[in-house]
């Protein structure tokens, strides 16, 4: 057990190094697959399968193993082996006929305390155009989405860049390794109406006003002595030609709409 622990430690160190490079995940190539599935960390692992067929009938086979670590922060690694010569050729053929590259994972729960019930029947599938995978030189971003209780509800795969331009790809150099970024995304909490900061702000403004009594006086309070004679004057003059004033008022109303 200790040996396994130390192995995991090494692995995690490795992963941290690679994390610096890919930000949110790990790409680990060239490992033997058998190890990946068997090795039990404090978390657990599930198989990631892929399918790419010229006749477009999905036949999934193992691509790698997703290893989850328990704890609050859902971290995930993907250990996968490099595509074989045959796989590369098929992938190129599929890309040529604009076929799909599909991946799938079983439905699981990432909560460690739900280990017993974590596996439920069915898979979550996603796809990307095979040509875009080839043209991006196998650099893909896989995202696992969980719901509030930690169930994986969906998987998505995109390639960067995502376009298919029909560029010729040198297989030996570019299709040798998967350059995968993998992450787990949990739902964000939507904001509630922010009453407390608003009230605080209002209070601050009130305080500011309180300090400066000059400001507190309203416009009318300050300038009534100018306004009242003006209004009186307008009323006096307005009374003389009522009809003209009415029409003018109507037009002003219309303009204000």
């Amino acid at each position, binding site marked *: 057990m200790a040996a396994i622990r130390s192995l995991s430690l090494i692995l995690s160190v490795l992963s941290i190094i690679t994390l610096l490079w890919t930000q949110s995940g790990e790409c680990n190539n060239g490992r033997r697959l058998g190890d990946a599935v068997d090795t039990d960390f404090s978390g657990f692992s599930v198989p990631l399968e892929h399918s790419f067929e010229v006749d477009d009938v999905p036949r999934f086979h193992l691509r790698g193993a997703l290893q989850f670590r328990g704890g609050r922060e859902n971290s995930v690694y993907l250990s996968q082996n490099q595509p074989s010569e045959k796989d590369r050729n098929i992938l190129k053929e599929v890309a040529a006929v604009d076929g*799909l590259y599909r991946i799938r994972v079983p439905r699981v729960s990432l909560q460690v305390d739900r280990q017993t019930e974590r596996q439920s029947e069915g898979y979550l599938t996603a796809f990307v155009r095979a040509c875009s995978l080839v043209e991006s030189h196998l650099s893909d971003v896989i995202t696992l*989405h969980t719901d509030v209780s930690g169930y994986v509800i*969906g998987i*998505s795969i995109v390639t960067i860049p995502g*376009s*298919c331009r029909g560029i010729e790809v040198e297989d030996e150099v570019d299709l040798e390794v998967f350059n995968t970024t993998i992450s787990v995304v949990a*739902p964000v909490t939507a904001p509630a*109406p922010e009453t407390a900061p608003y009230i605080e702000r209002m209070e601050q403004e009130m305080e500011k006003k309180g300090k400066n009594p000059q400001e507190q006086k309203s416009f009318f309070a300050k300038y009534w002595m100018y306004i009242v004679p003006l209004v009186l004057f307008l009323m006096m003059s307005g009374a003389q030609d009522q009809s003209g004033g009415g029409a003018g008022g109507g037009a002003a109303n219309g303009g204000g709409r």
Partner: protein
Amino acid sequence: MAWLVVRLAISVSLLYTASAVFEDQVGKFDWRQQFIGKVRFALFDTHSQASKKLLVATDKNVFASLNSRTGDLFWRHVDKTGPEGHIDALLMYGQDAVVVVGNGRLLRSWETTVGGLKWEAVLDTGSFQAAALVGVQDFVKYVAVLKKSAISLHDLSSGSQIWVENLPDSDTVQYQTIYSGGNGLVFVLGFVPNSHIVIVEYKIEDGEIMKKKSVEAAWMSSLENSCAVISSGILLCVDQITQSLYTLPLQSAEQTEMRQIHLQTLDLEVASEFQPVLTSTQPNPAQPPLAEFFLQLSPDHHILLQLKDGLIAPLRDFNPSYLAAFATSGEKTVAAVMSPKNDTACSINLFSADTGRRHLDTTIIYHMDPNGGKPNRLYVHAFLKKDDSVGYRVMVQTEDLTLTFLQQPGRVVWMREEALADVVTMEMVDLPLTGTQAELEGEFGKKADGLLPMVLKRLSSQFILLQAWMAHLWKLFYDARKPRSSVKNEVTIDTLSRDEFNLQKMMVMVTASGKLFGIDSKSGTILWKQYLEDIQPNSIFKLIVQRTTAHFPHPPQCTLLIKDKDTGLGSLYVFNPIFGKKSHISVPALPRPVLQTLLLPVIDQDYAKVLLLIDDQNKVTAFPSTKNVLQQLQDTASSIFFYLVDTSQGKLSGFRLRMDLSTELIWEVVIPTEVQKIVAVKGKRANEHVHSQGRVMGDRSVLYKYLNPNLLAVITESTDTHQERSFVGIFLIDGVTGRIVHEAVQRKARGPVHFVHSENWVVYVYWNSKFRRNEFSVLELFEGAELYNSTVFSSLDRPHPPQVLQQSYIFPAPISTLEATLTEKGITSRHLLVGLPSGNILSLPKMFLDPRRPEVVSEQSREENLIPYAPEMPIRTEWFINYNQTVSRVRGIYTAPSGLESTCLVVAYGLDIYQTRVFPSKQFDVLKDDYDYVLISSVLFGLFFATMISKRLAEVKLLNRAWR
């Protein structure tokens, strides 16, 4: 000072968004129609001869009074929906109408002239069975209410309870009927199925049981439907199996079993598998009923019988006859019988009830609508004429919920289409062009056949246009001389044509009863109607516009998918939305339940968009499925994606079309149903245009919108309903790739959730269970400062997730429905239309629902015209677009663009229908009604002449200078 500026900015922005109707604009471009629903009880006010009142209670829990001369509403009371407001019984005596509401929960008395509540009494619990007016010595004083296990008597003038008594053996005996003949006794009739009848006699004064007896009746299976009390308290029952009538005097002590009269002895026979119906009449509750009664032997066979000296004798046989009803005026009771006349008409005749003799000259011809349903209820209003003969009017209710009020000799006084009280879905279709415009359009549509014929055709159509223009000018000149009020253009189906700005459209409405309507949006006139028979009551409808009016000479085409809720089996009904005529296009048979429909932008050679129907085996049916269409589908199959939602398993799955029209599963998202369940999935509207790709920020940079046309908004609600743990989930999923673009949970929230998904935003409303209030939340998606691919959007090639901004607000009112305005090009700012339970429709500027509203005002946010964040959303009464024209129980709002960019057409439907126009950014492309043409043209001319004169003067001056 800064605060002042901010306030000024806010008030200016509010001034800009404030919109209200001026008093003189009321009814100018809006209308409302009020409905009541399917009539369950209707009573004519026979209190006085001149009375025009007709009291109705309907299945929509509406109690209303109609003007029987015009069909308009005098008043209407809309009660709660559901069983709580269900009207169980309606009784009328004099000026009072007594209503039992909510399965016998409330007893109310209404004053019928103004519709005021006189009194209300809360009754004991117990399921309602029957209610009756009880009279003593020719005066009706009480109302008796029979519940499952108790009977209570209430005073008619005050509602106070006189007494309440438990019924004996109410756990075994089913008490169903109540009878009083005005002799100081109330009889309660109950029975034990296939055993015996129980008759309990109560004294009116104190509720003392005077007598209780049980009579053998082994054949009886229901009392309510097969029995009636006639003559002086004689219980009459009919049984189909034994083909017999049974009589029993209620009060007699000696007769202990029912007397059987074989129908054979009367030469009658009940049709097989038909439950015979007895109809008796009791004109005055304080007096015993008449000895005459109707017996319905088959759906179209009635017979009028009379009980005389213990013997039953037929008075008149009505074969065939659809409906029969009694009516009383003064001392005379008459019977009206509707009999078929020919295929399209029925005749209604009046007969004297006591002799069965036909009254002369009383025939009313009722023409059945060929596009309507069969008549199923007949209500008769009899009145005494000046010469003391009996006149009458009838109200006929048909299967398609049309109320027709007729008078002699068959004149339709008014008509109400009550099916419109339950509109399920609707679409607005452009009206066709006028004949001449169509002529010109048609020229381009036809195949070219040589140069010369083309030129000739062009010249001839130009000539026709010129002619039409001259005629138009002449009409204008002619009309201008007439006073404005006399120029009234009635809208009929023949004069329909598109107006200049496409403001007048055809509203195609689908109602729950299966009746389709074509309504002119300008006036609200029903232009066509079509009743679809054999529609299951709980069907789901989806209306699809396959071809618009733009493809002359091809007529526009709408397709209605009707799906049975239980079996999921669907059928298609294809029709022309302008004329309502059924198209003779062969529709595909749908043997499997339809799960999803998809309207493709692919069009066939006749310009009809292709509709794909996906069944439960993921097989695809195309409609239309011509060779051309199939070829196009094969070519584009790899880019046709669709999704299916299975709410029971929480599964969303995506499919791609294959060449051979089969499908392949390409993605799957499963939201575990143990935690949350999917309540709604909404995409964007296909006819939506977004004018600007981004938003200009305060610092002059552009924030680009994430405009994914394939985005789906999925709303879930938690299964845990505890107020602390319940939540609402929002998932934004790409419908092509299945990628979850955004995932959020609104904690301590619960449904019902109303939401709008449009452009780059989703607005949803939920109930905050912690603070017990309604809240709005807005999500906006942005690509960021630069676009990934600015020319085209493809879900397959958009690798970077969008930036999501979200903000929430408190909304100080409950909400019934939510919709967003829609305009032709999407330049006009958007408003949200919020239907409130009060019946108002609030037009809320989207500006207030902007997640970029800043907490603290900065120079940049001011530059951008952002309103500072305030947690509470204001409700201003001037934002109510329907001022005082409230829409009862608003269930949906439909918006459609018009030809004017500033104008959006709005239809709100529920119990009522309200149509109006809204101008979210004011009428920036229309001159005001009070625009001063005289002033502007006089100024223009003045300037023109001033220029001319000054030019002349300048010339003279120059000349003079040159001479000098």
